[in-house]
C-alpha cells in the first residue's frame, strides 16, 4: 500500500533581545555559567516576572509579516512540569489565548512557491541548559546553567500541511531568512536559536483521516530535520507494512547516529495543568502599537525577491540569492543604481560573496570596507568598457585592502587601461596588416579567426585593452576594408 506522510512543525525561535523575557538580565550567549541570573530567572522564592516589551514587539512583527490575526488581549499561562533546567518547574507561555493566530509563510519549492499555513505564534520563556552525562568525583551527575533560563522565545506552530521532509526543510530555510530579515533572531540552529520539533503520521494515500502521530524532538539543524523525518517515516512505514500499529509517543532524534529513541514516560507525565499565570495581568496590545509595528515592517523577503526578478530582470536564482539577507539585498540595490541589474548581480554573487566568505566578514563589515557606492564606480567603468575584466578584478582586489577611487587605485599601482579608440586604433591597424592570412580567412566568411586577431591586439596592449572594445574595432575596420 502507498502511504502519505502528514507532518506539522513546532518551531522555537530565540529572540535577539538585550534582556530576558521576564527580568532585566542579559540574554546574551556565552557568559560564565550562572552569571546572568537574578531572583526572577533563578526562580527564587518570592520573585515575580515583568514582561519585556521588545519580545512582544518581535512577536507582533513576525505575526504581521506572515499575516496572522493579532489578539489585542492575550494571556500568559503556566505550563507545569518538573525538569532540572526549569527554575520554577513551570514555564510561562501562552496557551488558550496566544498573541498571533493563523497566517502563512510563503516557501520556495522546486515546483514553485507555496504558502504553508500556521496555527499560532506565541511568546514564552526558554529553559536553562543542562550538560550530561558528566561526572563529579566518582558519581554521574548533570550540570545545570540558568543563563539561558528566561530568554524570550517565540513558538510557531504550523498546520499539518507538509507531505515530505524536503518541504519542511524549505519551510525552515524560509523561516530562518524571515526572522533574520526582521531582525528578531540570529536564527543560528547550531547555537539553538532556532529549534524544531515535528509531528509525523502516515495514512494510506487517498485517505482523509489522519493516522496516529508521533512527536520528534531535537531536530536541531535543517539537514537534521530532513534526516530525522525520513527516519521516522521509514520506521512508521515498516511498522504499518508489517501489520503493526503506531503508538502515540515522543521520540528523540540523535543526529550523530541518525537514530530515533523513544522517550520513556510514565503514564501521566503529560498533564501540563495549564492555567492563566496569576502573576501577569492580561497582555494588552493597543491598535497604535500594531499600526506602528506594521509601519516599521520592511519590504518582506519574498516580495523583494519577486521585485528583483522583474525590476532588475534577474533570473529567479539570482533574486533568491540576493534576498538571502536584508543586508545583502540592500547592498545589491544600492550597487545596482544606474547599472545593468544582471552585471551588478553577477559581481555580488561571485566576487562580493566570495570575498566576504574568504575574509569571514559580516556583510555590514564588508559594506564598511567596500561601500556599494565605491564598487559601483568600478562597475560603471566595466559597463562603459573602460576596464577589461581581468583588470577590473585586479582593481576589486585592491579595493578590499586599500582606500581610494578606481582611478586613484589605478594610478597608485601605475596601471592604466587602454580603453580609448584613439589608443587602440593604431594597434588594430597594425595587427590587420601583420596577419593578412587570418584577415583573408575572416573576410572569406571564417569569422572564428576573429578571436585570433583580438588576442593579437590584446597582446600588443599588454593585456590592458577591453576585449569587447577590441572586437568591435576589429569588426569595424575589417568591414571597412572588405567594402572598399
Amino acid at each position, binding site marked *: 500500500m502507498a502511504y502519505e506522510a502528514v507532518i506539522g512543525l513546532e518551531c522555537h525561535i530565540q529572540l535577539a533581545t538585550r534582556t530576558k523575557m521576564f527580568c532585566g538580565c542579559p540574554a546574551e550567549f556565552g557568559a560564565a555559567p550562572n552569571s546572568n541570573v537574578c531572583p526572577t530567572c533563578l526562580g527564587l*522564592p518570592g*520573585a*515575580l516576572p515583568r514582561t519585556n516589551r521588545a519580545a512582544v514587539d518581535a512577536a507582533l512583527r513576525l505575526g504581521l509579516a506572515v499575516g496572522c490575526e493579532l489578539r489585542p488581549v492575550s494571556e500568559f499561562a503556566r505550563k507545569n512540569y518538573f525538569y532540572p533546567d526549569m527554575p520554577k518547574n*513551570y514555564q510561562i507561555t501562552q496557551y488558550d489565548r496566544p498573541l498571533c493566530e493563523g497566517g502563512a509563510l510563503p516557501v520556495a519549492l522546486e515546483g514553485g512557491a507555496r504558502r504553508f499555513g500556521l496555527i499560532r505564534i506565541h511568546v514564552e520563556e526558554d529553559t536553562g541548559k543542562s550538560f550530561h552525562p558528566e561526572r563529579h568525583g566518582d558519581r554521574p551527575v548533570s550540570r545545570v546553567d540558568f543563563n539561558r533560563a528566561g530568554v524570550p522565545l517565540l513558538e510557531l506552530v504550523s498546520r499539518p500541511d507538509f507531505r515530505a521532509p524536503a518541504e519542511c526543510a524549505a519551510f525552515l530555510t524560509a523561516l530562518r531568512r524571515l526572522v533574520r530579515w526582521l531582525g528578531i533572531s540570529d536564527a543560528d540552529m547550531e547555537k539553538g536559536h532556532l529549534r524544531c520539533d515535528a509531528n509525523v503520521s502516515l495514512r494510506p494515500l487517498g485517505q482523509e483521516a489522519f493516522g496516529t502521530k508521533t512527536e520528534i524532538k531535537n531536530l536541531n539543524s535543517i539537514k537534521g530535520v530532513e534526516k530525522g523525518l525520513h527516519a521516522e517515516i521509514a520506521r512508521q512505514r515498516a511498522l504499518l507494512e508489517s501489520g503493526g500499529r503506531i503508538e502515540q509517543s515522543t521520540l528523540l532524534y540523535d543526529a550523530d547516529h541518525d537514530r530515533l529513541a523513544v522517550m520513556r514516560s510514565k503514564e501521566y507525565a503529560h498533564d501540563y495543568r495549564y492555567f492563566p499565570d496569576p502573576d501577569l495581568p492580561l497582555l494588552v496590545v493597543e491598535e497604535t502599537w500594531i499600526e506602528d509595528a506594521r509601519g516599521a515592517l520592511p519590504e518582506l523577503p519574498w516580495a523583494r525577491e519577486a521585485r528583483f526578478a522583474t525590476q532588475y530582470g534577474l533570473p529567479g536564482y539570482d533574486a533568491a540569492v540576493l534576498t538571502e539577507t536584508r543586508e545583502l539585498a540592500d547592498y545589491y540595490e544600492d550597487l545596482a543604481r544606474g547599472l545593468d541589474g544582471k552585471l551588478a548581480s553577477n559581481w555580488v554573487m561571485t566576487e562580493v560573496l566570495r570575498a566576504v566568505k574568504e575574509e569571514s566578514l559580516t556583510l555590514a563589515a564588508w559594506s564598511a570596507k567596500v561601500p556599494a557606492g565605491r564598487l559601483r564606480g568600478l562597475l560603471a567603468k566595466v559597463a562603459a568598457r573602460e576596464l577589461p575584466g581581468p583588470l577590473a578584478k585586479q582593481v576589486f582586489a585592491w579595493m578590499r585592502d586599500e582606500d581610494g577611487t578606481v582611478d586613484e587605485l589605478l594610478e597608485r599601482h601605475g596601471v592604466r587601461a587602454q580603453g580609448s579608440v584613439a589608443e587602440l586604433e593604431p594597434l588594430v591597424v597594425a595587427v590587420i596588416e601583420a596577419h593578412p592570412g587570418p584577415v583573408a580567412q575572416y573576410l572569406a566568411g571564417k569569422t572564428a579567426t576573429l578571436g585570433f586577431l583580438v588576442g593579437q591586439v590584446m597582446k600588443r596592449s599588454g593585456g590592458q585593452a577591453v576585449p569587447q572594445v577590441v572586437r568591435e574595432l576589429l569588426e569595424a575596420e575589417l568591414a571597412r576594408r572588405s567594402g572598399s
Partner: protein
Amino acid sequence: MSAPEAWRLSATALAARVRGGELAVDDAVEAGWRGPAGTWEAEVRAVVHADPAARAAARPREGPLAGVPVLVKDNICTTDYPTTCASRILAGYRPPYDATVVSRLRAAGAVVVGKGNMDEFAMGSSTEYSCYGPTRNPYDLDRVPGGSSGGPAAAVAYGLCPLALGSDTGGSVRQPAAFCGVLGLKPTYGRFSRYGLVAFGSSLDQVGIFARHTGDLAAAYAALAGPDPLDATTRPGEAPDVSGWRAGVTGLSFGWPANLWREGVDPEVVGGLEEAAARLERSGATRVTFDFLPGEYSVAAYYLVATAEASSNLARFDGVRYGFRHADSADLRALYTRTRSEGFGPEVQRRILLGTYALSAGYYDAYYLTAQRARTRIREEYRAAFARCDFLMMPAAPSLPFRLGEKIEDPLAMYLSDIFTIGANLAGIPGLSVPVGLSRAGLPLAVQMLGPEDGEPVLLRAAAVLEAGGEVARLEGEDTPEFAWPTKR
C-alpha cells in the same frame, strides 16, 4: 517616659522620640526584647529567627518609622535573616534580596527585629503547622493565636514591637489579629507589592500589617502602599491617602449582613459585633441591613483557587537551587519526590494535591474554572453591597481563639474558620480586623470591616472610632488610650 517603657509606645510616638533625639535607636529597637519578650517569648514563641547583630546593624534616625522595631513574617524575604516559610524545605535559606515591602520599611526608618512564626507556607489558621512548633496566644497560652501569621500577631499583642508584617491569602492577617486582640489590615489587592513575598495563592496574597493603634496602621500603610515595577499585579497610580484616619464616621454607612451570623457563630463574637455597630452609630454612622451570599461559597471557591495556584507556586521547591535536598537522591525522580515529601509538612502536601487535582486534565473546568466563575459571582456580590454602603461589618472569625490541637485533625473545620475573611481575598478588597474588648474568659473579641477597592481610608476612620471609644480626638500623641495588654496567668 524612661527608656525601658518604650515598648508601650505607639510606633509613631516612638519614631518621634527617635527623630527628636530623646530616645536612642538602640533603646527603641531593643525595648521589646529587653522588656516583654523576657516575660513572654519562651512560651509564646512568636519569633523564629532573631539576630541581635542584625538589629544592631541598622541605625536609622530619620523617617516616619525611625527606629520602630517590626517583626516580619517568615515568608517575606529579608537579606539579614533567613526566610523559611516555617518549612523544612527552606531550612536555613537566606534570600539574596529584600522584599519590596521590607525595603520600603527600611527606607521609612523601621528596623526588622526578626522573623515571625507562621503556618508552613501560610497554609493554616492556627500557626500549629510550623516546622518550629506552634505559637501560643498571649491571652491564653493553651489557645492558638490564629494563623497563618500567628507569630507577628502574638508579638505585637505582647509588646515585642508596635508593628509587624504578615501575609493574608484567606484571612491570615485578619484572623490572627482578631485572636490576639490587635489591628490587622489586608490592603486592596495590588496596593502592596508582592515582590519578595513567597507566593502561596498569587491572585489572593497580600502583605498585611499588624498594629496596636490605628495611627500606626496609617503610618505603616503610607510607607508601604504604592505601585512597584517589580510586581506586575500592583495597582497603577498613587495609593489612597489615609492621613484622614481621625475624621470620624459621621455620614458614613455600614452594611449589616446579619444573615451571615444567624448560626454557627459564637454568641460572644456576635455580642462584640453588635456593640461595635452601636458605637459606630452613636458616632454618626448609619446601619444598612441586607442579606449577603453565604460564606460557604467563598470557602469552596477559595480552596480550589488558592490550592491550584499553590500547587504551581510550590513546584520550585525541588532541592536543586536552594533549601533542603534529601540526602538519598540517586536519580532525579528520587530527588524530587523525597525532597518534597520530607520537606513539606502534611497540610502543605494535602493542599498541593488538592490544587494539582483541580488543575489536572479532565477536572480543570469542573473545579478551577468553576471556582473562578464563582469568584466573579462573589465579586459582584461585594460590588452590589458597596453600592448600598461605605463599608461592611461582619465577624473576623466565627469563634473565639480555639485550643491547640482542637482542629488540627480536621482540615475542613480548620478551613471553615476562614469563612468571614476569605471573601475579601477573592474580591481583592481591603479588610480590617479591629479589637473590641475581651470576652468573659478574657479572650480578645474583634470585628471585621470590609471596604471597596481602595477603601482603606474609610476602614481606618471606623477603626479609629472603635479604638477611641468614639472619641477620635483622644488618638493624639500621648493621649492615645492604653492598649489592652495581655496579663500572664
